[in-house]
């Protein structure tokens, strides 16, 4: 039956979860995203880039907004929300850490060979695989929004 119809497109959906601002939460974040992407029936080809973008952004947030020492209090969480629909996937990261815009970080060195300094790659990768990346500071919170436009598979 399905070969006679256009690929149905994604289900409209919103789901969010809070993660402690600690690098050990990365695997849980990727698992949450993977499940959410399955639930909204996003095309398979977007799964890896969404996970990668989330991984890199989350890693950056926990590294800088909260300093290098992982926070201990339960209030130090990063809320990650995935919205699907209208031909796009939107990932939103919200945290109450120090004002921090990952997008203003120094760009990586892509020109040097093996002797390059290694910094800046994570954010660069996130920006490269997503279509839109926006930051705002709202009511004491950092809000980072990533958008991926989704074609019918």
């Amino acid at each position: 039956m399905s070969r006679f119809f256009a690929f149905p497109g994604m289900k409209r959906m919103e789901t969010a979860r809070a993660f402690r601002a600690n690098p050990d939460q990365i695997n849980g974040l990727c698992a949450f995203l993977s499940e959410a992407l399955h639930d909204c029936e996003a095309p398979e080809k977007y799964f890896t880039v969404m996970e990668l973008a989330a991984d890199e952004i989350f890693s950056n947030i926990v590294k800088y907004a909260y300093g290098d020492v992982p926070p201990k209090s339960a209030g130090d969480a990063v809320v990650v929300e995935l919205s699907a629909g209208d031909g796009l996937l939107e990932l939103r990261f919200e945290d109450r850490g120090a004002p921090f815009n990952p997008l203003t970080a120094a760009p990586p060195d892509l020109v040097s060979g093996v002797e390059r300094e290694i910094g800046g790659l994570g954010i660069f990768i996130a920006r490269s695989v997503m279509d839109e990346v926006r930051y705002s500071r709202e009511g004491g919170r950092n809000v980072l929004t990533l958008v991926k436009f989704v074609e019918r598979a």
Partner: protein
Amino acid sequence: MQIEKRRDDGALTVVLSGRLNTTTAPELEADLADLDGVRELVLDLAALEYISSAGLRTLLLLHRKMSAQGGMKLRHVAPGIMEVFKMTAFTKFLTIEE
């Protein structure tokens, strides 16, 4: 991530399976901390499903280490992983074989 190693004289082949990310990159670095006597390090990435910047960092460190004592090459790189290498210009200095 699973790490399988095969030593053949001065050549060390490391087969990676799974994900090379923030959690597993330190494991790989620790596992390959001792490269004494290794002249050629071959990373077989056929079963590597995912790499993030943490993994790239580890590859760069390994590459630098091996440049001083021989060389390093990557084999069987999946298209998704290759995309990440290209976008970060790691293809400029990594030796990548079929």
